[in-house]
């Protein structure tokens, strides 16, 4: 299988879907002539032309709302946010229009859009550019929320997202864009709502998604080598729909859980998971559910401190050891 970057996997998914379905259109700031702020859409303009790959002004509420409106007529916009952080400018469009239009119309109208872009900290761009809104988005019935951690997952999930008839929020990561992984060159889909065991283990389950999957794998490797601790890693891949079956099966196997999220803790995804695990598998637990989140303050700029504010392999390693204590 070809070894390609996470950004290339996303690009392949878009290119294949653009080819497959003439209703797919890519909209966003700098996606066409500039090739994308993170070069995710590089080459698409040349291949598909300006009708399909459209540079927009800096008007997130305008072009996201426009995409929602077009989707009501069957266009399938894939809209890039340069940073997910700027979703707040278009919040009303996403949460009042995209999330609700199907419901409020009694199921007569669909909203098949994808909004995609990076949502992560760790690049020292400060509080305004480092939001991770998956919990906020997932709080709204009507939207789906996907957070891929590997190139393989990114391609398969994005293709499913584009074919999905509901609005899908697709959260990528600038730090992962350059990561390489094996990705089939042909058509494959990963269904939304199917978690993936990224590492098998017996002593403790880490439930996580996004970049913390990669960090957890690094921590798990060290834990095995230096502490003889065997960690299982469940990558949720999709936050809503949420694959609780895979999570619970792993809990029944290891009986201990650490949730790791690149999220502020209050009402974060980890809080929802901890509630559901204790409610559905209380008797399986040998210890309280542990949780590692981003340290609870706005995202700091200062580079060495930001590294400590976020989950990182050392913090995860420490949290696992504490959870097993």
């Amino acid at each position: 299988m070809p070894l390609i970057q996470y950004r290339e996997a996303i690009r392949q998914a878009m290119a294949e879907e653009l080819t497959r379905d003439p209703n797919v259109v890519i909209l966003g700031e700098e996606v066409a002539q500039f090739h994308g702020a993170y070069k995710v859409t590089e080459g698409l303009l040349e291949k598909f032309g300006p009708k399909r790959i459209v540079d927009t002004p800096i008007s997130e509420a305008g072009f996201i709302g426009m995409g929602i409106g077009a989707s009501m007529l069957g266009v399938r916009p894939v809209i890039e946010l340069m940073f997910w952080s700027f979703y707040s400018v278009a919040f009303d469009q996403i949460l009042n229009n995209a999330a609700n239009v199907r419901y409020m119309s009694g199921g007569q109208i669909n909203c098949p859009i994808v909004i995609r872009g990076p949502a992560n900290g760790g690049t020292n761009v400060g509080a305004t550019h480092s939001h991770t809104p998956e919990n906020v988005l997932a709080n709204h019935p009507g939207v789906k929320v996907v957070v891929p951690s590997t190139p393989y997952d990114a391609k398969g999930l994005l293709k499913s997202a584009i074919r999905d008839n509901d609005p899908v929020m697709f959260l990528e990561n600038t730090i992962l864009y350059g990561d390489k992984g094996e990705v089939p060159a042909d058509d494959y889909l990963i269904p939304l709502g199917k978690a993936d065991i990224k590492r098998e283990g017996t002593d403790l389950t880490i439930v996580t998604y996004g970049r913390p999957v990669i960090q957890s794998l690094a921590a798990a490797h060290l834990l095995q080598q230096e502490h003889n601790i065997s960690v299982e890693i469940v990558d949720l891949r999709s936050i809503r729909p949420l694959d609780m079956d895979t999570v619970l099966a792993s809990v029944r196997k290891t009986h201990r859980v650490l949730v790791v999220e690149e999220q502020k803790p209050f009402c974060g995804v980890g809080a929802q998971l901890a509630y559901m695990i204790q409610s559905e598998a209380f008797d399986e637990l040998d210890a309280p559910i542990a949780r590692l989140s981003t340290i609870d303050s706005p995202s700091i700029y200062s580079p060495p401190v930001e590294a400590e504010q976020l989950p990182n392999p050392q913090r995860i390693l420490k949290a696992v050891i504490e959870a097993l204590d």
Partner: protein
Amino acid sequence: MSKKSSATAEARSEPGTGNPDLSGAPVNASLSVEQKVGLYRLMVRIRRFEERSLRAYQAKKIGGFLHLYIGQEAVAVGCCSLMGKDDHVITAYRDHGHAIAVGMEMNPLMAELYGKATGCSKGKGGSMHFFDPSRNYWGGHGVVGGQVPLGVGLAYGLKYKGLKGACMTFMGDGAVNQGSVHESYNLAALWNLPVIFVIENNGYSMGTSQARSSAGELARRAEAYGMAWGVCDGHDLFEVRAFMAPFLEEARSKCKPAVVEIRTYRYRGHSVADPDNTYRAKAEIEEYRKTKDPIQVLQNTLLAEKVLDEATIEKIDTAARAEADVSADFSEASPFPTVADLQKDVYWEVDNPSERKSQGRLFFN
């Protein structure tokens, strides 16, 4: 980008000062020799500070984004040099020039870029989020268009408190298409707020030229709200001052808002990370550098006026370079904030525990 010939204040509904006589404009004519040299020095200090910060960035001392203001200095210095003690400034993320123009020192600015506790925002904000409320400088804002309603709010606050000042609210040519900007225009005009919306038109929003992002003439949108507007060339400091002064005066004395477009140019990429090789020609940048560089333009004027001579120019330049080097050394020697600092400056009550009134947990890990 379309360039009109310089030295024209174009159509504006009011105030009707017509084309100002720039050399004789009162705000310029009244400047002393020291003041003129001081304005020149400010522009040079901004340039040298940013060049030094670029080297620090290349040496990996600075993280994140670094949006340089090089080429635009006459706009911030021209506008901010007109500030009285009740006047205020707010801008976007390309904020180093305005910070120095309002009088902030290089040390805390460079230290902020280095992410150090001695930075103007204690290392918490970074390049895009410089602040100094003691100098009426309200940031430094990272979300395009996000600062514009805040500028309206500062103007509202001034009027509410019966203060005589005005707020200059800077934004880029790309920001004008944000809904927040249009909503701000309406509020300012509807309630007669003392705010000047200053569009710093450097021709591009990232890699998108003005022609590809905006319909119509940028400042003319003011007409729809019944606001005064104007357009001016931003390469000549004196021209910027002459152009801005009447608008500011109208805002201060009559609470008349306005939208102005100042045409300028950035030499560097959008940020240091922009390879700058897709959307404009190298020749275009060179042309600006050669014929319109704001420091060179002012230097030529002041040389002709015999306000400056070669020796003084040299001295100012050497001093600015030395000051920038010192700020880098200061930053290097300063400590980073600590992990414990993360949860300081989040809530007033947490930082002032003896005056805390609320109960319950404020942090969740």
